[in-house]
Each structure stands twice: as structure tokens, then as C-alpha cells.
């Protein structure tokens, strides 16, 4: 039987409408109700939910299983998959399994290095890298064959995406790397959390210059800060994160009880900038352990699906 269903996220982006995705981390345990409860907070306000794959190299419920729980709630998952924990055999096998279970979106990542996680003594696999992984997912869809060239009875037809960090070094290579991901078959890109809007705008300008925004849907990463402490911690400790000093000062400049509101305000301002930015197709909200914030943020930004439908007249 041919698995039914197509990616609604893909359709939405293809139709030129602004998309909203949000991130959800599976629980550190086998409690499916935990993920269903948290996913329900996102229902009705996002187009798809990214389900992380042992995020920050901490053991959690598998992305594939959590995606299935989320599917049952009526939400559409974007399955994140890292090359850190699986070799090419396991990656392809899980891809086949995921597709058979109704998962239609995949975000291919190399993954946070295991030394940052709960088990720094683990072996990092890194058999293939994220770009090679994107390409193998694309090739599977286009040729109907797995990486060995074996013709598959049903080849997964995934909407394939990749991540980009406009804030990492070396800056001049960031666009080349984005181009390589697109060339390998990435159809959508979700970026690292944007706080340094100046640098992000420059990155987007270069992407447009190379004609990349014509070839890929870029969803800008948004994280509402909860406190000045969180801002300082992320700036100092989270790899690849760029939080400018003026953002930290803004968070420090308000009373502690108002800090979360200030974080929401900053996030809203960033979203508004992104809405004006040519080449941006949507936003990706990473509200770490703070799913309640997603609905409020989307609502405040006037991006609830109904409102968006109204704006666009359909």
C-alpha cells in the first residue's frame, strides 16, 4: 500500500504563504502523555512542529516515536535527524520507517557534539555529514533508490530541510555552505536563533545576491528570552549563539518580573523585521521548555493561521 499524505508545510510554503514552525523536545523518559500535552499547546498556531533528535546530545524519547505521537494529535511534525548517533545504514532505515509511519518532513543535521550532552563518553558516529545526508534523502526521492543504488519498493518522498547558522564563523563561508545545502537538495532552511539582526540582514543580502532565496524557503529562528540570566547563559555557553550586548542590557534593564515580557517584545520586533525582509518565508520558534509562549507570540505577531488566511484573502 502506498503511504498516504503529503507535507502540508511544503504546500503552504509553495503557495507563498508565511509559515510558522515551532520546536518541541521529546521527554527524558517514555511518557507519551508529556509530549501530547505539550504539543497540544502548539495546536492551531503553527504549521508544523520540529521534533528534536536527542537535542544537546541528551538521551530523550526518539524523534521518530515522538513524531508519531504528535501526528496522532493532528499536528504535522518535522522530524529532526542527526548524523551524530547513526551511520548511513541506520539513517536510511529510520527514514524508511518514518515515512511508513506518515512523517513527511525531515530536517537533516549533524547534531550537537556528544561532549556537550549527558554522556560525553559516547562514541560520535559522524559516518556522513549533514550535507551528504540531505543529498541522500533527496536522491532517494528522485531516483527511488537507497544510497547503495538498490531500487526501493516505495521510496520516501520527504520535504527535506537543513539548518543554517548565519552567526557562526567564518562569515564569508556561511553563504557557500548555504548554497551547498541547497545544491544537495535542501528545500527549506531553519536558522539559528536570531538576536543579531544586523548580521542576519547581511547574511540574507548575500543569500539574495547569490539567488539562493529563489531556490529555498528560509525560516528565521526566534527564541523569546525569559530572563537576563538566560540571555547571558546562551551568549556565553551555547555554541554558535550570537546575542549582542545591547540585547543583554535590555533584558537586564527591566525588573525581573517583567523580563519575560521584554523577551517577548524583542522576539516580536525580530519577527516584524523578518516579515519585512525579502526572501524570508517564515519563522521557526524555539521556545525552550516554554511552549505556552509560542501561541502568545504568534497571536501577538498577527500570524495565527486564521488571521494569516484572512490577510491573504483565502
Amino acid at each position, binding site marked *: 500500500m502506498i503511504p498516504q499524505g503529503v507535507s502540508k508545510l511544503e504546500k503552504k510554503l509553495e503557495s507563498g504563504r508565511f509559515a510558522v514552525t515551532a520546536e518541541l523536545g521529546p521527554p527524558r523518559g517514555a511518557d507519551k502523555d508529556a509530549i501530547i500535552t505539550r504539543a497540544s499547546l502548539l495546536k492551531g498556531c503553527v504549521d508544523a512542529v520540529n521534533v528534536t533528535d536527542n537535542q544537546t546530545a541528551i538521551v530523550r524519547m526518539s524523534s521518530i516515536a515522538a513524531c508519531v505521537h504528535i501526528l496522532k494529535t493532528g499536528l504535522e511534525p518535522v522530524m529532526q535527524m542527526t548524523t*551524530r548517533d547513526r551511520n*548511513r545504514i541506520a539513517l536510511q532505515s529510520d527514514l524508511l520507517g518514518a515515512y511508513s509511519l506518515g512523517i513527511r518532513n525531515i530536517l537533516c543535521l*549533524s*547534531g550537537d*557534539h556528544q*561532549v*556537550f550532552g549527558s554522556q560525553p563518553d559516547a562514541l*560520535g558516529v*559522524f*559516518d*556522513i*555529514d*549533514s*550535507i*551528504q545526508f540531505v*543529498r*541522500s534523502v533527496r536522491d532517494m526521492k528522485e531516483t527511488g533508490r537507497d*544510497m547503495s543504488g538498490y531500487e526501493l519498493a516505495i521510496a520516501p518522498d520527504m520535504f527535506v530541510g537543513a*539548518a*543554517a*547558522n548565519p*552567526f*557562526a*564563523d*567564518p562569515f*564569508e*563561508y556561511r553563504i*557557500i*555552505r548555504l*548554497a*551547498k545545502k541547497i*545544491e*544537495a537538495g535542501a528545500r527549506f532552511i531553519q536558522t*539559528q536563533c536570531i538576536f543579531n539582526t544586523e548580521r542576519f540582514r547581511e547574511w540574507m543580502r548575500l543569500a539574495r545576491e547569490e539567488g539562493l532565496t529563489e531556490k529555498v524557503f528560509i525560516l528565521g529562528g526566534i527564541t523569546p528570552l525569559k530572563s537576563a540570566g538566560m540571555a547571558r547563559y546562551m551568549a556565553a555557553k551555547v*555554541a*554558535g549563539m550570537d546575542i549582542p550586548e545591547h540585547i543583554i542590557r535590555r533584558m537586564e534593564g527591566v525588573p525581573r518580573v517583567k523580563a519575560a515580557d521584554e523577551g517577548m517584545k524583542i522576539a516580536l520586533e525580530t519577527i516584524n523585521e523578518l516579515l519585512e525582509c525579502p526572501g524570508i518565508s517564515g519563522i521557526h520558534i524555539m521556545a525552550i521548555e516554554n511552549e505556552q509562549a509560542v501561541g502568545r507570540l504568534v497571536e501577538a505577531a498577527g500570524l495565527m493561521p486564521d488571521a494569516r488566511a484572512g490577510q491573504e484573502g483565502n
Partner: protein
Amino acid sequence: MIVAEQKPLAEIIEMVSPYGKLLILGCGTCVKTCFAGGEEEVAILASLLRLAFKKKGIDIEISELTIERQCENEFIQEASLAVSRNDAVLSLACGAGVQDVARRFTGKPVLPGLNTTFVGVMESRGLFTEECLCCGDCRLGLTGGVCVLARCAKKLSNGPCGGSRNGKCEVNPDSDCAWQLVIDRMKNLGTLDKLREYTPPRDWRSSNSGGPRKILREDMVI
């Protein structure tokens, strides 16, 4: 060169304690250069073990010998007499040397005194860094002479991850980001555009993943 470091003394003491007569066998090539297993290190370790066992009131007779290389039978043979006079051999060679000595002297316990760590260089005096994983399929020509397999923590083949910051690796801020080195070098060489090309997955059979490797030089076989 092969870079190694001496095992903790407590581990060595425990390992050698069953033996009354011990030969500490040094190796005069790679591990001598990295200050882990040459004459000097053999002498220091021999003294330390003598002092340690004297303190415990245990009699142990320790002799010292360093040969040119422990990975070649021709040199290993020079140790035959010394080995025969002792109950066990504590080899200060790399893992290959330890095994080659053990293979040659079937009836004698051969113990490792070093932890063999990597193939690398002495970047500056006293600082050794890993440079090669012996993958068996050298691609240094593609990456400006910087090995991204050995020197990128995620073994990325197609450019730096999102954790490269100010030229340093997110996994260890003391380490250079290998990809930053590649990009700087290729920019200098005017070949940065080459990095736009896609690098396909590796065939790991050339590496240790395909099991222990062998090279047979037919022309050298008599």
C-alpha cells in the same frame, strides 16, 4: 610521528607487581621524540619503580634497555637476551611495538607502559597535536593540506558546522576549527571556490572500519 603518553604510575605499578624481574624496554623512534618511551623515560620510570617497591619493602629487579624500534623484528632481536633474563617486559612503545615484541617472545608477558594516543606533530616544544587518522584515503589535496577528518570534531566533509567561533572549535576552545584553517589557507591560495564542490561520503573500508588493514608489497617479498 606516533604520539603516546605514559600510563599513570599507579596503573603501571599494579601491572608489574606480580613479577620479580622486570625489563623496561624503550623504543628509540616515535615515542622517544614525544618524550614518552626513549632511554630517558626508561631511566626515570626504572628509578621510580625501584623507589616505589623499596618503599613497599618488595624486592624487584629492574633492568633497562632501549632499542631503535620495537616494530621491526631486526631490532627486537637485540632485546632477546635481556628479555630471556627477566620475568616480564614493560614495553614503552606504541601499541604496535608492544604487540610486535609480544609476538616475538611468545612465553613472556609483555605489558604496555604507554597509552598510544594519535598520529601527530610537535606543534611547539612540549605541545603535540593530532593531525592524521590513518583513514587510508587521503583527501588533503581537497582541503588545503588540513585534515578535516582528524581535526574536525564532527568529521565534517563539506564545511564548518555552526559552532565555529573566532577560529576555534566549539568542542574545545583550545583547538583551532579545522575548517577555519582550510578556508584561510584556500583563500590564500586563491582556491576558495573549490570549497563549493560537494564531497561525497567516505568509503570507510579503507579505514579501520573495514577490519585490520594490510599492505602487501609483492616486489619486496622474496
